C-alpha cells in the first residue's frame, strides 16, 4: 500500500512543483485558511483524478493490490498532501510574516479539508470526479437559494460562527470537533471501500 501512496506522490509531483510556489506567493496576502483549503483540495483531487481512467483501474487491480488497499491509499495519501500544504503554510508564514501560524487555524484547515474529502471521495468513486463540479454547483445554487429566501444573513452568520470557533477557549470543544471529523473521515473511507469493491472495470 505504501507503494500506491508513493505512486500518487510521483504522479502529482509536476502539479506540486507548480502549486506549492503559488501557495507560498499567495501567502503574502489573504487569510491562509481559505488558501490552504483550496490548495489541499486541488492537489488531493488531482491525485484522485489521475487514477480514474478505466484502463488505470485495470492496471491497479491486476497488480498485487486489493481494492481495499487501493482506496485506503487515497485516504492516507490525502492526509499526506494535506500535511504538506499545512507545513508549507506554516513555514511560509514563519518566513514571510515572521509569525507562527495559530494552531487553531491549522486545525480549522485540516478539519475543513477532511470533511470535504469525506464527501468528495465516495461521490467520485460512485460517479466520477468530473461530476463533482456539477454536484458542487448544484449545492452552491441550493445554498444561494437558501441564503436568499430563508436566512438572508447566512454569510454573516457563518463568518461569525468561524470567528467564534477560532476565539473559543474550550479545548474540550476542539476535541469533540476533531473526534466528529475523524469519525466522518473513517465512515467515508469505509463507504468508499464498499463502493469501489462493487465496481466493474
Amino acid at each position, binding site marked *: 500500500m505504501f507503494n500506491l501512496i508513493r505512486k500518487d506522490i510521483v504522479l502529482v509531483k509536476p502539479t506540486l512543483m507548480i502549486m506549492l510556489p503559488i501557495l507560498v506567493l499567495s501567502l503574502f496576502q489573504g487569510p491562509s485558511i481559505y488558501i490552504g483549503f483550496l490548495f489541499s483540495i486541488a492537489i488531493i483531487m488531482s491525485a484522485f483524478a489521475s487514477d480514474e481512467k478505466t*484502463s488505470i483501474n485495470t492496471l491497479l487491480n491486476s*497488480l498485487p493490490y486489493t481494492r481495499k488497499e487501493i482506496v485506503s491509499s487515497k485516504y492516507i495519501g490525502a492526509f499526506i498532501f494535506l500535511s504538506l500544504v499545512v507545513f508549507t503554510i506554516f513555514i511560509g508564514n514563519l518566513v514571510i510574516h515572521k509569525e507562527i501560524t495559530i494552531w487553531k487555524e491549522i486545525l480549522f484547515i485540516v478539519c475543513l479539508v477532511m470533511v470535504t474529502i469525506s464527501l468528495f471521495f465516495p461521490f467520485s468513486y460512485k460517479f466520477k470526479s468530473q461530476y463533482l463540479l456539477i454536484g458542487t454547483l448544484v449545492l452552491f445554487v441550493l445554498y444561494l437559494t437558501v441564503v436568499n429566501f430563508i436566512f438572508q444573513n447566512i454569510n454573516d452568520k457563518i463568518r461569525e460562527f468561524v470567528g467564534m470557533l477560532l476565539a473559543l477557549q474550550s479545548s474540550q470543544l476542539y476535541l469533540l470537533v476533531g473526534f466528529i471529523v475523524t469519525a466522518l473521515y473513517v465512515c467515508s473511507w469505509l463507504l468508499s471501500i464498499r463502493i469501489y469493491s462493487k465496481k466493474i472495470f
Partner: protein
Amino acid sequence: MENVIELQHIQKSFDGFQLKDLSLTVKKGFVTGFIGGNGVGKSTTIKLIMNLLQPDNGTVSIFGLNYKEHEKEIKQRIGFVFDENIFYENLTLAEMKKIIKPAYKNWDDNLFAQYVKTFELPLNKKIKTFSKGMMMKASLTMALSHHAELIIMDEPTSGLDPIFRRELLDILHDLMQDGEKTIFFSTHITTDLDRIADYITFIHKGEHLFTKEFYKIEEEYAIVKGGNELLDRDTEREFVSIRKSNHGFEALTANKKRIENIFGEMVMLEKPTLEDIMFYTKKGAEQYV
C-alpha cells in the same frame, strides 16, 4: 495433471449478455489458446480470471487458491497483458517501471533491461507516443519481468504486424521451455495458435464448447465434402453443421473415423483449420437454438 486455472459453474450476467454455467480448466506447463468470435465472453472470462469482475455464481480458483483469501498471493504470480494501454500515458517507460516494480517481490531488473533491449524500447519517451506494437512490447516486458508463473493475455496479437507477431510467438515459445510456466491467451487470429498452442479452449455466446489438445482436434475433426445425394436425416446428424450448395455439401465432423466408416470413398476429407472449426461450430450452435 495440475490445473492452474479452474473456473467452475460460473454465471455472470450483464445487460444483454451472460455467461451461463461456464466451467473451464487450464493445465499447468502448457499454452492454451482461447478462441471465440467477437463479443462471446472472452474478455469477460479473462477479467473473471484476473478478479477484475466477480462472478454472480460459481468459483474461480487460480493455483488452487481463491481470490477471497489469497488475492495478493495469486496476483504476485500472474503476468498480464491487455489489448489496450493500461499505463499512465504521461509517464515514460522508466517511470512506469518505478511504479510497477515495488509491487512485485520477484521483480528482476536484469530481465527487464534484457527485454527492453530485445524489444528496442525507448525508456525515456512518454508512453502516449508509443505505437500499438511498442505498447504491446512494453506490456509484455512488464508481464515477464517478475518471473510470473502464469501469463494471461487478452488479444496480444491484435493490431500487430506479422513480423512482430511471429517474434512474439517465438518469445512465448522460449518461455515455455522450463515447463513451469503456463500461458493462457485469447485471440481471434487463429493462425497464431498453430505455432504454439498445446490446448484450444473454444467458447461461443458465453458457453464453453470445448477444450481439447491441439493435435487431437486435427485427429478428430475433418472437413467433409461430397454430393448432396449422400445427405438425409440420419447422415446429417453425423455433422457439426453443414453448408449445402448446388454442387454438393461441405460439412464439419467431430468424428473423422466414423465418417470414414460410413461414407468410405464417397466423400473427400480435408484437414480443418481452426477457423473452419469456429465457423461450423458457431453455425451448428445457432441451428439448435
